[in-house]
């Protein structure tokens, strides 16, 4: 049984990390990062079967791929707090000579990262390749991936979605962060996605919906359901309904904080709403 309170505490600390990281360099993407904090914390601390340390090939463990690389703050915070690299290194986010580049990359050798992402729409293809490598290696572990909803406007996703079902890649759980927002406004106003569930199902995927995508228990329950659906000949998609900017009231329900850092006062207000739990870096 998962220790939900511990996961909540980690999440609160991760929110603080996100706010402080983007505030320090006055750049980065807090909105989507905050919206996915619970998901990342649950994934790395409860859901995935991970080996100690980091090995690029990841044989004998579950692997995660982030496609919408701009939410790097949440990724870096969760990786550091899961032990992949020193938490103090979060201080170097987006600074020159840092391993914590604006968007995640393997180029500087940051443990935990297996592919560069940032240019959108490429992560699902990579995740599918890794899933097929697992099958060739007789490795029964799973591939997890995360994608933005706006990102689905990139055509490569649909090549990958068609390929996964056509080739029975059933050892992958691809989660879509369904927050309904992108840089220029809501997804409905920029380029309507229509029914994401209907589209995935029409392409031959099994779809699991998590209505409360910022609720740890709901995430654990939904992801357990998704995991139970793997190995049955079809790829599995999780539609995670999140609130952009979750946990910082003035950042919620708007695309305004997609790629904007808080000022000093806003940082103080955000931190006040998220008291220190594990200790700041």
């Amino acid at each position, binding site marked *: 049984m998962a220790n939900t309170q511990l996961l909540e505490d980690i999440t609160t600390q991760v929110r603080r990390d996100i706010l402080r990281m983007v505030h320090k360099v006055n750049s980065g993407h807090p909105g989507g990062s905050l919206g996915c904090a619970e998901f990342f914390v649950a994934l790395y601390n409860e859901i995935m079967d991970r080996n100690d340390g980091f090995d690029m090939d990841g044989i004998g463990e579950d692997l995660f791929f982030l496609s919408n690389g701009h939410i790097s703050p949440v990724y870096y915070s969760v990786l550091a707090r899961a032990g992949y690299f020193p938490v103090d290194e979060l201080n170097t986010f987006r600074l020159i000579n840092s391993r914590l580049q604006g968007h995640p990359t393997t180029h500087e050798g940051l443990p935990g990262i297996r592919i560069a992402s940032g240019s959108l729409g490429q992560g699902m293809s990579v995740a599918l390749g890794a899933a097929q*490598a697992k099958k060739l290696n007789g490795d029964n572990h799973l591939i997890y991936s995360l994608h933005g909803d706006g990102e689905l406007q990139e055509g490569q996703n649909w*090549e990958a979605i068609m*390929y996964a079902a056509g080739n029975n890649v059933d050892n992958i759980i691809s989660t879509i962060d369904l927050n309904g927002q992108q840089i220029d406004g809501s997804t409905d106003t920029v380029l309507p996605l229509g029914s994401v569930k209907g589209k995935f199902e029409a392409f031959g995927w099994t779809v699991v919906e998590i209505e409360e995508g910022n609720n740890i228990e709901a995430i654990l329950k939904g992801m357990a359901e998704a995991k139970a659906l793997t190995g049955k000949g079809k790829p599995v998609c999780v539609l995670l309904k999140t609130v952009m900017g979750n946990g910082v009231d003035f950042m919620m329900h708007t695309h305004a904080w997609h790629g904007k850092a808080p000022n000093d006062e806003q940082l103080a207000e955000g931190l006040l709403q998220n008291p220190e739990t594990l200790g700041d870096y």
Partner: protein
Amino acid sequence: MKTYENQGNKDTRSGFGAGLTELGRTNPNVVALCADLIGSLKMDQFIEENPERFFQIGIAEANMMGVAAGLTIGGKIPFTGTFANFSTGRVYDQIRQSIAYSNKNVKICASHAGLTLGEDGATHQILEDIGLMKMLPGMTVINPCDYNQTKAATMAIAEHEGPVYLRFGRPKVANFTPENQKFEIGKALHLQDGTDVTIAATGHLVWEALEAAKTLNENGISAEVINIHTIKPLDAKAIIDSVSKTKCIVTAEEHNHLGGLGESIARVLSQHKPTPQEFVATNDTFGESGTPAQLMEKYGLNANAIVKACENVIKRK
């Protein structure tokens, strides 16, 4: 002069297919991907012998590059196969981010490069791919000259850790390099000794360069011929050593003069040994439909064009 014998015309893409088949038998980590062009890429035999190690992607090249990048995570060595146009320009950002920047061990194998694709015309005749690929940090760029060398190069790149662009073609051309040769990435091959002019050629133009050297010899001009099968990393020493003797150079390639082998050589020479240079390459233009021979004649990419360029560059010494 050394003489080179054509052992019979063969297509370089079949050399790729033969190399891939050999790899299927010898290297269990090699996997192959194709975007609906199995026959054109000569991948049939590999697939027949290793069905579990082959991935038919369909007409979805962007996805193919990403899936290939992912397959490396877990220790596979993916060889992607499609036409050169769809292996580069169509998927440049996927290669840039998921393969080159991520330093993935993917081998991008590109057939039907250049004008010699022939009748299909300019939509398919990419003349910019060497430039696109050589600009990517960490990418190795190879353009072998005949069947035997393409087979050897295909096998050699499996042993090289890191992304590789391997370029070859459609038509049957002279097969004159040794069977079962060892291919050394980045090592230019000295084919003909000469004192008056250096000809540095790549791909299909290497045989044309040898033919040109024969004609030049009959006219009393001694031409040195170098096969630059690896455009990046470039064997700068081989080029500098040769022009130190000949004092002028002609570069020959089935590619735009912008971004190709000639420019890479010009950069090396301008830094280390400024030397008169003439370019046998296309002149910032698209191709068109026609037979390979007609196209190479019209766009100035054959032995005659190399002879003329040599005569011109010698006058500039």
